[in-house]
Every structure is written in C-alpha cells, then in structure tokens.
C-alpha cells in the first residue's frame, strides 16, 4: 500500500469522533570514519504509522512501525480505545480543516548508499592526502530522507519530503594534540567540496603549531556561525510560551506573563524561522506525533510561515500551540524546523572580523552544552577543536580549551558586532537540528570559567 492509501484506510475506519493519521517513510545512508579509515556504515529503511484518535476531548495516540495492511485496523482500534479511556485533553481544539494538497499523490522520496557516489572516492583521496600530510581524518556523513503524510478527518491532506544531509570532518595531528573541525549541511551532497574542507583543516592544524596557554577569564571572543547556531538553538528550544507563562524560564516576566516585547539585544538582531528560506527549506505545516508543552496533536496541518522570534533586538514571539496562544494571549506561532539570525545590513565576514581584531579569541565550536540555570538560561559547555589567539588582525596561535558559563540571552545584550550570516552546521545539536543560517558574533567579555586540558 502507498502511504496515501494507508492514511485513507485508517481515516475511513469507524470508531472515533475525529482522527489524525500520520505516515512517516524514512530512508537513511551513512558512512563513519576514524584515523583515515572507515569504521561503520549502513543503510536503513523505516515506516511508521501514527494514529491520533479523538473521542470527545480525549485523545489516544498509538504509533507502530512496519505496519502491514491487515494491521492498520489494530493500530486504529488501539488509538480509539486510548482516546475513550483518556481524560479530556487541555489542548483540544477543532482539527485544522483543509483539503488535499496538489502534491498529495506523489510517491515518497528515498535515499540510498548511492548518494555517496561522489563523496566516497573524494573521501578516499582525502584520507590518502591526510596520511601523506601527517593528518588523521575522523568524521561522519549521513543522508536521511523523511517523507511525511498527514491526513485528518476534516479533509486535510498534506505531505512533505525532507532531505537532510550532514558532513563532519575532524582532522588531528598524529599525536592527537592538535585538532580542527569543519562541518557542512547539505540536501544532497552535490554541493560538498571535500578538498576545500580538508584544506581548511590543514590550515587550522598549521595555526595550532604555536601553542599559547591562557588562564580562565573574560575574553573578547569571535564566535563563528556554527557556535552561534548551537547557542541560538538552545535559546530557541527554551522559548516555549507555556513554560514562560508559567514562570519557569528566562522568558518569564517576574510577577507573571512573558517578556514578549522586551529588548534582549542592543543591536538590531533578528532571529527567525522561515520554511521557504532557500538552502534551509523545511516543512510548511505542523506535524505533531504527541502533545507536549510546545506541540499539540490538534495542530497537525497548521500552516507555517516566516516567524520572527526576535525582531530588531526585541523578543517578538514564543513557540506556541494554538492552545498556549490562547492561554498567553499571544500569536499562534508553532515551532519551525529552521533558524536564521541576521544583524544589520553590511555585516563583515568572519575573516574581516578577524582582521579587525586587536586581541581576542576565535572559537571553532562549542560542545557538551547543558543548562545550569533555567531562570537566566545560563549554559555551560566546552570549546572544542581549536581556540585561536588573534593578535593585530591575524591568528597567531592556538590556545587551550576552556569550559564556559554563559547565557545566550544575556550574551545577546553584550554583542558588539554581528557579521554576515551564512548557512552553517551546528556542532553540538546537528543530530537534531541542521538547518541554520547564522552570523559570526563579537562578544567583548565571553566567560571562560576554567581551563580544560582536553585537546
């Protein structure tokens, strides 16, 4: 059966008052390597049917993989029973109405190991070059295609095909004391230039040959786009309207309500999501497999458009369900699967920002980022794979790694320069979030709390 036929059969079965049916078809391929050699690899296929049944205002959600046509009724029956047993759902709303989208009948897209047809030999050449050049390459390439089909008993039929590709390349010196990293987000790997990425790694390992030990402290710091992405993704994940309204987050207003409308950054920074943004295109409607604080199964199919989370430095919106929007009295702004940050027009490139730096640190990426205090969104984590000392406009050596303690919200208020935004792969969170466009930032006093001995 096609996914569309599964949706129709599940919706047609009698039982619940209303129903949402989601079919996810997934294919993946990956290559992993270490020390200039392959370590693991694989291809996999998955198919998942999720049935959300609504009886009165109770909901039942049952999800099963590899469902055969004769098992569809069992899944629907289980969801119907769960709905009848359930307490009323606080987020209950009329389902999103609609009709079949024009592309509804198209088959699911797929990937296979062949997506690495050009990448694999290029990696092989890079391994050989690295071996000859005294470098060891480590990393991972993955391509995943998710095709999701959403149908509701109110007539809505929407589908989306989402290709997600990522490449991480990490080069180390043979004694493992010097390390550099680059990453790329891609839809199909045709735009990935292994040789260029490897050349960047070679340059950075050269920078690291001069070692400078620095003590903990607050330093002027240039955060490259990938590091900014990791911090802003955490901010975004912490921007749930309901938790803010309940007084639990950095976006809660003391005494009640949220901080929407408050100035967060002195510079005119915009942080937004846009499903149609070229290079980071993502699904244009809500897909919710289970209700939570930031997601409601009743919102499945809800159309998404450009949404500003921070506009001109002011907090503009928080992540909402239709239910939480009603509770908080704010706009209906559900989560979107990309994140873009931009500053004033004419921002410099990272290279230009380095050239304009008298003395400061240039980071590569941040790692093991965890929340210390939700009230301030204080995060801790490590610098990784290259902290470089910039003096008089040039990189003059590599500095030891640090543990940082910083809040991305507080940091926004201290940023003194926003560079030109570009598509980037976050390091820490790219298992979950790859579609970002971020600028480099200059922070005059980034808090390096302690020295890490890690290389």
């Amino acid at each position, binding site marked *: 059966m096609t996914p569309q036929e599964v949706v129709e059969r599940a919706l047609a079965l009698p039982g619940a008052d209303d129903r949402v049916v989601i079919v996810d078809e997934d294919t*993946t391929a*990956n290559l992993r390597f*270490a*020390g200039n*050699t*392959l370590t693991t*690899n*694989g*291809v*996999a*296929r998955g*198919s998942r049917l999720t049935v959300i049944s609504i009886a009165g205002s109770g909901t039942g*959600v*049952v*999800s*099963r*993989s*590899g469902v055969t046509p004769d098992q569809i009724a069992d899944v629907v029956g*289980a969801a119907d029973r*769960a709905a009848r*047993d359930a*307490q009323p759902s*606080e987020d209950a709303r009329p389902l999103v109405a609609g009709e079949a989208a024009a592309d509804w009948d198209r088959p699911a897209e797929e990937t296979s*190991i062949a997506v*690495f047809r050009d990448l*694999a030999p290029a990696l*092989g050449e890079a391994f050989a070059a690295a071996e000859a050049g005294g470098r060891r390459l*480590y*990393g*991972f390439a*993955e391509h995943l295609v998710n095709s999701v089909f959403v149908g509701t008993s109110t007539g809505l039929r929407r589908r989306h095909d989402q290709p997600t590709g990522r490449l*991480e*390349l*990490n080069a*180390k010196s043979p004694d*493992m004391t010097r*390390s550099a*990293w680059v990453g790329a987000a891609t839809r199909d790997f045709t735009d990935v230039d292994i040789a260029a990425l490897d050349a960047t790694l070679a340059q950075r390992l050269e920078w690291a040959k001069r070692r400078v030990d620095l003590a903990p402290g607050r330093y002027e710091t240039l955060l490259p786009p990938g590091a900014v992405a990791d911090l802003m993704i955490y901010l975004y994940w912490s921007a749930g309207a309901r938790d803010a309204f309940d*007084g*639990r987050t950095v976006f809660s207003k003391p005494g009640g309500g949220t901080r929407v409308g408050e100035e967060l950054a002195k510079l005119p920074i915009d942080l937004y999501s846009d499903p149609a943004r070229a290079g980071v295109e993502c699904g244009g409607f809500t897909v919710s*497999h*289970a209700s939570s604080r930031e997601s409601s199964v009743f919102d499945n199919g809800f159309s998404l458009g450009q949404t500003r989370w921070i506009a001109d430095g002011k907090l503009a919106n928080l992540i909402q369900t239709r239910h939480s929007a009603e509770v908080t009295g704010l706009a209906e702004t559900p989560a979107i699967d990309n994140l873009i940050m931009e500053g004033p027009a004419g921002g410099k490139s990272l290279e230009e920002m380095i050239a304009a730096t008298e003395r400061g640190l240039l980071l590569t990426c941040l*790692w093991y980022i965890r*929340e*210390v205090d939700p009230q301030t969104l*204080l995060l*801790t984590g*490590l610098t990784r794979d290259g902290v470089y000392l910039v003096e008089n406009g040039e990189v003059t050596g590599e500095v030891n*790694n640090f*543990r940082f*303690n*910083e*809040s991305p919200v507080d940091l926004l208020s201290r940023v003194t320069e926003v560079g030109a935004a570009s598509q980037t792969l976050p390091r820490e969170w790219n*298992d979950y979030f790859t579609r970002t466009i971020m600028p480099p930032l200059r922070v005059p006093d980034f808090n390096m*709390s*302690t*020295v*890490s001995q*890690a*290389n």
Partner: protein
Amino acid sequence: MRQIDPDFLALPLRQLADAALQRARELGAEFAAFRLERVRAETLRLFDARLEGSSDADDLGFAVRVVKNGTWGFAGGITLTPEAVAEVAAQAVQVAEVSAPLNREPVELAAEPVHEGVWVSLYDVDPFDVPLRDKVALLGDWSAGLLAKGVDHVSASLMQVKEQKFYADSAGTVTTQQRVRVHPSLTAMKSEGAAFDDMRTLAPPVGRGYEYLTGTGWDFPAELAELPDLLAEKLAAPSVKAGTYDLVIDPSNLWLTIHESIGHATELDRALGYEAAYAGTSFATFDQLNTLAYGSPIMNVTGDRTADHGLATVGWDDEGVQGQRFDIVRDGTLVGYQLDRRMALLKGLGRSNGCAFADSPGHTPIQRMANVSLQPAEGGPSAEELIAGVDDGIYVLGDKSWSIDMQRYNFQFTGQRFYKIENGRLAGQLRDVAYQATTTDFWRSMDAVGGPETYVLGGAFNCGKGQPGQVAPVSHGTPAARFRGVKILNTVQEGGK
C-alpha cells in the same frame, strides 16, 4: 520467572535468520549476524495533575551485519519475509563492497563460544499490561498531593520500555531476550518573589516493571511527602559562597559523575579514537592500562552486564557475547576497558567483555556502556559518618546539570539539593551550587567510601553516543563517598550577575 511474550516468539525468527545468513554466505561474507528486535516505548506526561500528552510507539524491524573482505556492511529493514530479509542481506554486502576502498583496517572479531538460549530481565508486572488510565490516575494522585502542599506546579512523567531481541550469527549463536525498564519522575516547582526553583524526585530509572511504582524498590509516597518542604527550604536558602569545600556526595548525584568521568572514559573505542570526531576520546589512553592512578587506593570500579535490575544488564550483547562482570579500576589503578569483539582482538585483550549494543533495528551495534559501578567498602561508613568527618563542606543529593569535556578531564555538575556541612553536621540547604573538577584530581581526592548500606543503583535511559546517534540505558551503582578540596562555583556569579 517471566517468559518472553508469545507474540514475539510467534514471529518467524529462525526462518528469517536462515534466509539472511544464507544469502550473506552466498555473497561471500566472512561473518554475518541477523538481529530482529521490537522496542516498545510508552511515555506519559502530566502537568498539574492533568494528562498533557502520551505516546505509545513500537519499533519493529531487523538488521543484517556482515564482514566482507574485512569491511563491515550493515543494512536494516522492516518487511518480515524471507525474500525481503535476503534482499537486505544483499544490501549489507553491497554496503561493505562500496565502503571497502575507504577501509584501511581489516575487521576481525575476537572469538566467542557459541550460545543458544533465552533470557528475560527481572520484573514482576509488565507495565504494558497496566491500563493507561491507571497510570495516569497514580501520577495524577501523586501530583495532586504535591499541589495540595503548596507547590505552584508539578510535572510528572513515566517512561516505560520493553525491548525484545532475537540474534543469530554465522558462527551458530542463537539468542532471544526480553527486558523491561521504567522511569517515573515528578518535579515540583515554586516561585517566591522573583526567585523560581524546582526539585525532582531522586528515584532512579530501573530495570523493573510497574511494581516499582507500587512499593517494590522505592518508596514514592515517602519521598513525595518530603518534597514540598524541601523545595520551600531550597527557595529560602542562602546562595553558596564560591570556594573550595569537602564534599559528601549521595549516590543520587554520584552515579552521574561516575557515568561521565569513568564510564565513558573507559570505553576502549573512545580511547582508540573511534569517537574522536563526536563523543570524543579519553584521557585514559591505552598505554596507561595497568599504570594510570585513576583515583585514590580505595577506588574500585567494575563493569557489569549481569547486575540485578541494571539498565545495561543482558544475557548476551548484540554481538552474541555473554554478559559478564569485570574490573575497570582496582585499588585506584586503571585495569580494564569496556570492549566489543573487534576491539578486544585488535588490542590483544582476548575475549570481548560484552559491551556491544544497538538501540534499534535500524542501527549497527557499537561499543556501549556496561553498568559501571563504584564498589562500596565492606564495613564502610554510613552517610552520617561520612558527613561527621567534614568540618566545612557540602552534602550533594540528586543530579541535574552535567557537562564534561571531550577527553573526560574537566567536568561541572549541579544537583537537586545541597546542604552546608559545619563541624560534621548538616546546617541547612544552599542554592546556586555547582562543583567543577578534573577527573583524576577528583577521584584521587576521595578519602572515604560508604558501606554497602549506602549503595544505590542510579542510572539513565538515554545515554547518547555514536553517529548516527544512539541512546542506551545504563545503571551505575555507588555508595555515598567523601571528597576533599573540590572547587565550588556560585552559578549566579558565573552568569555575571
């Protein structure tokens, strides 16, 4: 003793395995393994005693893993017919062939006896046999009890997993396993003026069934009865003065420090660089085996895949290796690593100690953590006796924030509750505390290990590692222990306030 569910045994397990292994052999694979598994997970979340969301999902599928010409090949599928399984076996061989030009290190596996058997974890009540409404009612009652005692909000959750695995390989091993785990958790929240804080139950996730929520293995009513007053005290507590303190750490916090600074640091794949680009490497490099002074001489750490109710406990791992118990740190010295079959042979360590695991049918097995545990001291002190030996210190309970660097040197942890220790006695809670240290400095500063009566098995459902990312459940047993001269941060000051 419980049995494996009949509906899993009713699947054509051996027929599918035969189809996969035969096809792999025909295509020239030197080694082949077939794994069919079903992972069922139900999660429910309540907020202020009302159901906020629930999900009931299963993941049923199979994987074929081969070695062809010294290169791994892996493929996963979902269609449970001999024809489809044979096709996926062919894909696995194709993946090995496509990948071969990238491979400079031929794959060979440590020998393992052939096993045939069935294993079921220790539990009494299958949580999937308990109606959802009963679970919601229990968590709702507990939440309502907290709200009635003056907390502002309560979030509650219950995660339940049943994992069924069938494994067969070309050497002849055939195993079938089923294990169950549950994790109930409640968090109370309260604000006082501009200050907000929360406190979570200390009950760890365990390899038990629903009986864990009804009195076996943990006393939830007793813990919940204390929570509102403890939270109120925390909100009114003074902020810690940053500096250096002696610490007494409860198992509810120390398990996570063990996990991050010992568990991951003694994974041989990390020490050898296989995780260098992602999870990281380890300061405990292979050349330091049997010489590295990991901690003080009273430090003894074991890896264990046989511990009762352990989250990483199995009969056999995902390479067909029998679950074992082994030493990692003995009398303070590093003496062992966690292994899979490839690494055991590669480094001449003999038999694998059974630490291969895949979290789903779509993922290849990688080396994952055993239940890595700090051993108590026979006849050792109670927590009160440990505290009595501190003049100016802090008693730490419950885990919260954690972070450690990519070689497992530098870490920073917070907790659920911190008590000031003055002259051997607790002197009220403190706020805004984090402890920060370097792994070997920290473990070498341990001057007392609690007795067996202080030993508790903590753990987590969701230890992350590998690319593609995989999550693994793991337990860590530990007694209470005392550490001298640990750096304490004030987290408010760290935030620049």
